[in-house]
């Protein structure tokens, strides 16, 4: 029993140190965004020599939003002769096929790609791999079907590839349905913290801005050379991020290239989304962890940030174990002076991981975005904490089972809602 108590106490100290590192990291990010030197994206480059581009939109049962995204894309200011738009109909069983075929008849630049064979596996990674075999574009730009890109978005994203080190580019995601209910408003604030601060600060500090799988672009040749997307990995975007850095490429972040997406409107849908993200992210952790240590391309600071980024979805399960451990120590009368502060871990947890960003980061991000009324809602994030750690932990367990069984992963798509078009 004494050994068990000793392990329990050591675990509390380990967790305290680990959580503190994340807290300090987020403080540095927020500081960098407020007071540090800002690294500008390539918006100011004026160049008429643009590369050929294939804009792909993976779709599975997207009848509510398919036409909206295509309407926005045909309005793009990117040279028409250098751009093709490819909606991927991935085994849709609703009206998606009819909608995109009808749209394509009216717009010659739109070339639908139907994945309907019974022996084909449905999935975003599979669709993106298939489309790379015949697309003409040197650059692939990806939008999810519920996105509403502004007309300058494609040009802005593609401009990043003028830098020969850049293998992928990521734009900023805004929440389209933030006015639907309290949940979507909170998600809008959370997204703001992620993009306005974490992504931009990572870009400022030469760390690892994440490729997010949508409102993003990558060099086709590079991704093909790396073997394409792994269909066994649910988070093909995070996987690509690490593959890029492991192969010596960089990711650029375009904070002003904004695009709207729909967020879940119910807590149950949000919980499933968090679980899916956690599962995908942890799969990437299991895949790439050893390579980060040995890679010759990662700088020291990229290694550090890459590891922290990989472990972020593992923290909730460590926290759950930490809570159970502190109860055990309490009843064993073994909460010493250091570990008597173990309950305080939860303060940090509430601020650092329940919502994937500390409260001050969320608040400052929304301050930078000029939001006023919604700022007062920040304390509400504390009430999401338990739900998030529970579902993120379930995602971690899913990923462990994936690792053990090498089972196929299925894409659980977030439910769409038909809404008015409010993009810029």
């Amino acid at each position: 029993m004494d050994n068990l108590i000793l392990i329990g106490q050591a675990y509390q100290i380990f967790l305290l140190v680990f959580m503190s590192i994340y807290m300090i990291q987020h403080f540095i990010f927020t500081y960098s965004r407020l007071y540090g030197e800002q690294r500008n994206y390539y918006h100011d480059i004026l160049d008429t020599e643009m590369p050929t581009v294939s804009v792909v939109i993976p779709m599975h049962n997207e009848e509510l939003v398919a036409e909206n995204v295509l309407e926005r894309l045909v309005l793009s200011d990117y040279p028409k002769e250098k751009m093709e738009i490819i909606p991927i109909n991935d085994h849709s069983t609703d009206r998606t096929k009819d909608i995109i075929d009808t749209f394509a008849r009216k717009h010659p630049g739109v070339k639908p790609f139907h994945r309907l064979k019974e022996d084909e596996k449905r999935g975003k990674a599979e669709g993106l791999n298939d489309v790379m075999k015949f697309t003409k574009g040197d650059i692939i730009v990806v939008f999810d079907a519920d996105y509403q890109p502004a007309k300058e978005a494609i040009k802005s994203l593609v401009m990043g590839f003028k830098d020969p080190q850049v293998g992928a580019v990521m734009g900023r995601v805004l929440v389209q349905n933030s006015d639907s209910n309290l949940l979507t408003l909170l998600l809008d604030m959370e997204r703001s913290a992620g993009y306005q601060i974490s992504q931009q600060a990572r870009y400022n500090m030469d760390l690892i801005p994440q490729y997010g799988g949508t409102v993003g672009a990558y060099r086709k040749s590079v991704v093909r050379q790396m073997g394409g997307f792994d269909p066994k990995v649910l988070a093909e975007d995070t996987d690509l991020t690490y593959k890029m850095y492991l192969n010596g490429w960089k990711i650029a972040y375009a904070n002003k290239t904004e695009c709207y997406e729909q967020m879940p409107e119910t807590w149950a849908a949000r919980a499933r989304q968090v679980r899916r993200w956690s599962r995908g992210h942890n799969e990437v952790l299991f895949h790439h962890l050893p390579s980060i240590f040995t890679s010759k391309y990662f700088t020291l600071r990229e290694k550090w940030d890459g590891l922290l980024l990989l472990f972020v979805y593992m923290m909730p399960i460590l926290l759950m174990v930490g809570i159970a451990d502190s109860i055990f120590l309490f009843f064993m009368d073994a909460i010493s002076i250091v570990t008597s502060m173990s309950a305080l871990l939860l303060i940090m947890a509430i601020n650092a991981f329940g919502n994937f960003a500390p409260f001050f980061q969320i608040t400052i991000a929304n301050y930078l975005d000029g939001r006023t009324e919604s700022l007062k809602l920040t304390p509400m994030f504390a009430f999401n904490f338990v739900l998030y750690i529970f579902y993120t932990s379930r995602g971690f367990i899913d990923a462990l089972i994936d690792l053990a069984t090498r089972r196929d992963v299925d894409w659980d798509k977030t439910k769409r809602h038909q809404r008015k078009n409010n993009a810029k």
Partner: protein
Amino acid sequence: MWVDLAIFVLVSVGSIYFYITLIHHNAMMMIHEVFTASGLHIEMIDLDIYTFSMSAFDISFHYNSQITLFYVLLLTVGLMLFLVYQTKIPLNLVFWIDFLLLLTAIFLVYFIFWPTYFPYNAKKYFELYLHAYVGFMLMSFIVFSFSLALTPEKLGKKLFILSGVIAYYFVYSFVRLAATLLLVSQVSVVFVPLMYFTIFYDFILIIYIYTFVLYKNTIKSQGLYHG
């Protein structure tokens, strides 16, 4: 920003020192006088908190019968299940409340089956409680100091807000301690772990104050600043 931060951290640490060495003892004396005037004769005990001497009361915990605890456990589990299956309360709140109920259920099970193994008396418990609470206050003030230092606002105003938060926490700490004394001595020993493990919830107040400050600031600067 760094000067602001240094000042805030100094104020935070200084105030905690002031709390441990002076404020807490005086407040305990006042509570003791109130108890005595009410005919309750409770001895005061000295505690060793981070090498400083602090005081509390030598109370005995109220142990309920096992059957009573069992009924409360049934009620707690029933409430947890009801929350899971109802559809009116949002899922995030359901998880939050169920987490508290789960903690309660664990503590109830412990006191139903192993009450004789409970290792705490008043001295040991309040030593643990005050360690945690003083640590909680210090940590809260420091986290708040860092957040406040980041905020684009005048130093004087930020200092005023920090002082207000510290003053509030000091007063609230005695209200909470008095409530803990009453609950564990008059209602149930189950509140002993419960009051310890719920200390962190008080931090939500800090978040609210901080966001309110920024909210006011944003209103003032709206249209002038864009990141």
